[in-house]
């Protein structure tokens, strides 16, 4: 089987565990492949629709980071809450939210998850326990800690998975939240998606401590650096962290070392990194290619994988079609949902 190529010193890798992560079963590999591919194709389509002017405002694509949400979701159980920042389409699809509803929100239509009133950065699903979709960098960290507080208060067995990036990791309220989470032993996994650039500022230019797994040290919160391009490593780390949280031991930090292939948003000058750097990660570490190679090595046919791709493309095309033909919200919606 084709192991991921050895990463350069500055590229994502698991620095804590060494060795290969536990193998997936064939079913797990196929599920991870399909779920990651859905996000990839969805985001490609969103980028295309943005270029056509069908999607407005900000649109932050998740391409390259798919293994993080898909691996984490495989480690969760029913009722666990998920919350993240503005780069949120992948998280929504991973929690099982409907592609039509997400895409229609991107186009600002009435069938969108927020009836067209939230847009790319603000979508929610009570049913799927997805709590947004937040546009203020770092705000979701306190909110996610509050979700964990509610689990703790109710004495249930659920955990909150709170995602944020290497940029948000420098916000003050992150550390206020860390302190309370450890103080009160709240069941929250802080997943720091380190994609190496906060907008256009590289981690080395913004962070005094570049090992984000150590950001909880002064609060006694354990942390691990994980190869966020390997869905198996992500799932294994997620399970370990979830078990820690469910055992009442408090929060856990997972630094997912990952990479975004596209710009920060759709209008990104891409002057802060070289094309070669992007190409290298794509070629050496692509999370979907890793799974594809393993599946092929395990004698899954190219044809079977193509069939999965075709099925995913159908879902995405249907979503794009729905999102472009669904009507805009009724004008009366301007005044609804301010209060309840």
């Amino acid at each position, binding site marked *: 089987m084709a192991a991921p190529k050895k990463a350069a010193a500055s590229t994502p890798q698991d620095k804590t565990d060494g060795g290969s992560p536990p193998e997936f079963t064939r079913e797990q590999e196929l599920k991870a492949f399909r779920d990651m591919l859905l996000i990839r194709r969805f985001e490609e389509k969103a980028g295309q629709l943005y270029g056509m002017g069908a999607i407005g405002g900000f649109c932050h694509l998740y391409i390259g980071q798919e293994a993080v949400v898909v691996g984490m979701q495989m480690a969760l159980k029913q009722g666990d809450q998920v919350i993240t920042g503005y780069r949120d389409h992948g998280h929504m699809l991973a929690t099982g939210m409907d592609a039509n509803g997400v895409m229609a929100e991107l186009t600002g239509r009435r069938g969108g998850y927020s009836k067209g009133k939230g847009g790319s950065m603000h979508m929610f699903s009570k049913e799927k326990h997805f709590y*947004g979709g937040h546009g203020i960098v770092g705000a979701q960290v*306190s909110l996610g800690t509050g979700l964990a507080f509610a689990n703790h208060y109710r004495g249930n067995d659920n955990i909150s998975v709170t995602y944020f990036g290497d940029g948000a990791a420098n916000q003050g309220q992150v550390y206020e939240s860390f302190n309370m989470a450890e103080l009160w032993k709240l069941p929250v996994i802080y997943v720091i998606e380190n994609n190496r650039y906060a907008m256009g500022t590289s981690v080395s230019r913004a962070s005094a401590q570049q090992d984000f797994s150590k950001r909880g040290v002064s609060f006694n919160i354990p942390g691990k650096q994980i190869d966020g391009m390997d869905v198996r490593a992500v799932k294994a780390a997620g399970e370990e962290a979830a078990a820690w949280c469910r055992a009442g031991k408090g929060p856990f930090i997972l630094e997912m070392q990952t990479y975004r292939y596209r710009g920060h948003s759709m209008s990104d000058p891409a002057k802060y990194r070289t094309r070669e750097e992007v190409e290298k990660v794509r070629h050496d570490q692509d999370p979907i290619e890793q799974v594809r190679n393993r599946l092929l090595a395990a004698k899954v046919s190219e044809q079977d994988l193509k069939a999965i791709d075709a099925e995913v493309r159908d879902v995405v095309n249907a979503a794009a079609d729905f999102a472009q033909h669904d009507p805009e919200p009724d004008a009366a919606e301007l005044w609804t949902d301010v209060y309840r």
Partner: protein
Amino acid sequence: MPIQVLMPALSPTMEKGNLAKWLKKEGETIKSGDVIAEIETDKATMEVEATDEGTLGKILIPEGTADVAVNTPIATILADGESAADLAKAPAPAKQEKAAESAPPAAAKPEMPQSKAPTGVPQQAVAEPDPEVPAGTEMVTQTIREALRDAMAEEMRRDADVFVMGEEVAEYQGAYKVTQGLLQEFGAKRVIDTPITEHGFAGVGVGAAMAGLKPIVEFMTFNFAMQAIDQIINSAAKTLYMSGGQMGCSIVFRGPNGAAARVAAQHSQDYSAWYSHVPGLKVVAPYSAADAKGLLKAAIRDPNPVIFLENEVLYGHTGEVPKLDDFIIPIGKARIVRSGSHVTIISWSNGMTYALKAADELAKDGIEAEVIDLRTLRPMDTETIINSVKKTGRAVTVEEGWAQSGVGSEIAARIMENAFDYLDAPVTRVSGKDVPMPYAANLEKLALPSAAEVVEAAKAVCYR
């Protein structure tokens, strides 16, 4: 010459307190730093330390005396070589001020229960009966502090999802003693001391509310809530809309707002206008004890985020609170607290203090002011204001906040939009002065609105 020991103040807003206990007897030797007495208010207790050395000459105020005015001489200390005979040389104790007259020294009561309000605290007189209270309802006299506490306790008994969090709300019993006794009744799970971390715990509260709990988040004062205003506005107020109605947030942010006394610019700001600007929030600012209770209960039950602006100066004021099992004042309804036909005075929270005093003064000059207590700033009860202005043709707004973009400006605009043809004079705003709050007592007084300014404004709009 013998030295006088004066009644100290525990806080900038304390005007009088109880002399709970003498720990030294007349004739005992005293060293600097010795604790000689204990004093208390409904908010706190404090030990009085000697700052001079000598012998405790005479106890001027016996223990158990209630409502001793700050700066009243409570004892004399004799220096070395002085004797009791020298006491005559001490300046005559200043006459105990008015407060003491209304409350003569009581029989020794070594331990005043803390929740019992001193009898001499300002009592709010309300002229018009509240239409929300059925006639014949039994009333109890309570401080606003107690009314707020009871509102929280009743709602916590009723709904296990209600909890209170904030700095010093539990073991310390509340920085201003508003949460007194809640920890004892509801335990540490539901009465939660937070670290000093406003931004963080406001966000934690909002997250818990999104998950369906009903947090009461106490800010020690709203000045500190500026650290948390992003979570209040961007997360609490907007999420229902941004989620297309899916994800609401039933949460109360409460605490003292506005000027206290002598705490200067960073601790003396009125946020009424700030929060009332924001769709998605409800903003409540009660003046009376009954409203404080009824509105806080309504706020806790409200499915939306509610900003509940209290006032430190008013905490110790007493008023009549209906003795009802479930006394709720609906959010969004103003109240006419004094009827009149010549001019409408509109205020809320501590602004009502100036408004009502001014109305008394104006009555002496034959001007009958109609005084409206807004109680809720958002949604604003425009109808009550407009109906009154249609009757009087004149309006004065009173607020402690700054005039520019203030609540008074909003009221003036609504009157102009809805009752322009009824106006006999321009609407006039009485407000805090357009400066940061100064510390010096005289300047502070000048910076705040006053009853005299309200009288002047009312006369001006009446062309008197």
